[in-house]
């Protein structure tokens, strides 16, 4: 397990810009949690506040941490505190907290991290653009513009959900949501990925349609709107450029969300670029330009989102976490059964709440009553080294 550390591109965020350290401090735990390759230009997010591992701050450090990113303050610990305080919340099931969220939404964003602000800008830009387009389309009676406006509105809705999940995921875990709200980020990533899948299918259908019918009349007056759309989306691409990879390894919850937003705007801009290209080619007289371009765009978008789909789907399906390889698992099992008090280990299940936060449960057969606690400690420390802190071990005595 002692691979060289030279692959770590991350830096300890100590207000240093453009640090591309090959090495990380010793606090940075485990290489088994794969790193994310960053483009080598400057990493421009220093947090607004000094690093804190507490995820209840609204200014969370993004990519850099002093401790391993899987060292989340245990949701369950907070649960213990909040269970006293939240006794009165029993009946509301999170409705109350959502209300608070709505009320403090903009406040949270204003004090939020820069991605939130960027996303808010992006959403407002999109909303403005789509209302203008809708108005123009309705007034001039051009259906193409109206449909484009609808498409944009769907996209805006999704981005708003992403923003909402960014804000909401900072809530403390409550009685009903014992694992906290971070899953919302994964959900929003999944929803974005789904939307992009739908889009890719609909583009493929459009290409097929154009192929069958051989018509291309509605591309002409959409050029202006396509160009503006492209511009708006390129702004978004620029905002989220740090997530400009297809195969990012996700180390925290927000990674997935930001990545999905990036892919969203990227896919939209590819689509607009495809439209522009298609109409240009058509004006040049190329015969099946539309089919080609739409088909290409559809395939490109599909390829783009597949990794995100798989990753977020995997988390939602409670798949074994990719960050804990099965070799590490079997090694742990061997070490546990090597102890003399332990006779068997079974029902080992691990899953991720959000990327980086692994939860597990185990059953161990112990030979006698007395040595339980020492076995428990041993097992916990073993898995702690792997980065799994939320573990429940049931010791059955034979």
């Amino acid at each position, binding site marked *: 397990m002692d691979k060289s550390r030279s692959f770590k591109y991350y830096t300890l965020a100590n207000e240093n810009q453009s640090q591309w350290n090959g090495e990380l401090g010793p606090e940075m735990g485990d290489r088994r949690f794969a790193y994310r390759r960053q483009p080598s230009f400057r990493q421009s997010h220093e947090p607004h506040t000094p690093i804190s591992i507490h995820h209840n701050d609204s200014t969370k450090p993004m990519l850099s941490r002093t401790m391993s990113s899987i060292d989340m303050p245990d949701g369950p610990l907070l649960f213990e505190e909040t269970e006293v305080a939240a006794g009165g919340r029993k009946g509301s099931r999170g409705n109350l907290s959502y209300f608070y969220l709505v009320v403090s939404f903009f406040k949270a964003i204003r004090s939020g991290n820069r991605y939130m602000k960027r996303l808010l800008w992006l959403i407002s830009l999109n909303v403005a653009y789509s209302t203008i387009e809708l108005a123009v389309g309705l007034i001039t009676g051009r259906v193409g513009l109206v449909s484009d406006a609808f498409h944009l509105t769907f996209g805006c809705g999704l981005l708003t959900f992403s923003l909402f999940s960014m804000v909401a995921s900072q809530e403390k875990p409550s009685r009903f*949501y014992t694992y906290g709200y971070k899953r919302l980020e994964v959900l929003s990533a999944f929803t974005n990925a789904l939307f992009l899948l739908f889009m890719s299918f609909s583009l493929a259908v459009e290409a097929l349609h154009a192929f069958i019918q051989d018509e291309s009349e509605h591309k002409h007056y959409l050029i202006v709107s396509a160009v503006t759309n492209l511009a708006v989306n390129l702004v978004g691409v620029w905002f989220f450029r740090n997530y400009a990879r297809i195969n990012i390894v996700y180390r925290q919850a927000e990674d997935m969300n930001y990545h999905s937003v990036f892919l969203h705007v990227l896919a939209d801009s590819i689509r607009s670029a495809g439209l522009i290209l298609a109409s240009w080619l058509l004006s040049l007289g190329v015969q099946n330009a539309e089919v080609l371009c739409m088909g290409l765009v559809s395939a490109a978008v599909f390829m783009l989102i597949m990794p995100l789909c798989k990753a977020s789907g995997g988390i939602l399906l409670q798949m074994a976490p990719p960050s804990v390889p099965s070799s590490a698992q079997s090694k742990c099992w061997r070490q546990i*059964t090597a102890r003399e008090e332990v006779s068997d280990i079974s*029902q080992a299940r691990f899953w991720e709440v959000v990327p980086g936060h692994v939860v597990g449960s185990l059953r161990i057969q112990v030979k006698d009553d007395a040595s339980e606690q020492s076995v428990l400690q041993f097992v916990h420390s073993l898995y702690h080294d792997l980065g799994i802190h939320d573990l*429940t071990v049931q010791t059955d005595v034979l």
Partner: protein
Amino acid sequence: MSRDSDQGHVVEVRGDIPPRETREIKVCDEAPCGFSDAKTSSKDARERAASMRKLMIAVILCVIFMTVEVVGGIKANSLAILTDAAHLLSDVASFAISLFSIWASGWEATPRQTYGFFRIEILGALVSIQMIWLLAGILVYEAIDRLINGTSTVNGFLMFIVSAFGLVVNVAMALLLGHDHDHDHNHGHGHGHGHGNGGDPDHAKDESGDLHIQGLTFTTHHRPHPHPHHHHAHEADHTQPLLEAHTDTETEPTSKTVETKRQRNINVQGAYLHVLGDSIQSVGVMIAGAIIWWKPKWKIVDLICTLLFSVIVLGTTIRMIRNILEVLMESTPREIDATKLEEGLLDMDEVVAVHELHIWAITVGKVLLACHVKIKREANADAVLNKVVDYIKREYNIIHVTVQIERE
């Protein structure tokens, strides 16, 4: 997973350990223990087969009607009919997704998917709800399109006829997908597997006899009469009315919800919602078509009706989305009262504290629990463990419990 092949240990069972525990261990021959034991997996398989059958019939019906509409639309050269055929196509797609989810959720657990594939149901339901929303949006867009482009002469009458036909089709499928929850009622209590708590011959309410053979042993949990579950008592009264109401089944926050949801697989429920939404939309289009037919100048009615009914359709999906979201967020299922559970645990003598209590659902109806229980130093850990596990399984019907015993 490394296993002792030492079968002798498994046989050595103390008297007070219920035989169930050793059976679970024996059953786990492969790395991840199968998430359900043999009895429930066959029940699950039966429920799955029933749901799949229903959906399959719905798909076939849809395809038939769709081809009819496509042929008719091409012959009559009407865009309206063709768009309706496209909607039926999306129905088929949505049913196909549900069908796939149901089938996939029966796959065996693998080392990568240690909890089995039950979550696929939930994701499939999410996808089909998204499609409902997408379709509602498309319909609104089409209404606007009709408003801008439409020729008012043919519109009204054609809209009326097409949507009437669509309504008939959708209502037929709604009946198909939703109607027989009366005798699916028996499948409902089956998920409380593993504890033979005595039979309850009180099945006067149920019609089909042979289906509740397995249900017999488990119903005591849900019929409070022979059982001291006072907090279930008031909910039994809701049983019958709950089952009668088609669209209310997903909302009641009682323990009965577990069965009522289980009795109608969430994917079938999603398909039902889809079809229901389509019927509502058809009604809206019919109304609009009739009005336009009567007064061809009031084209705006089309848009208004579509918007209105789209909102209604979205409203019907809200509950299901909420349930899906709750499962996906790993939140405590509504039917389990976590506070009460914790209090019940703390009530036990040897238990000092309970922490890290997590209760979550793999899919509606399959609940898991994990917690750490701190006991007094001198207590017998094993006895307390059994007591705790038994309490949870008995009172709350949670099948998979992992309890870590810590001493002070």
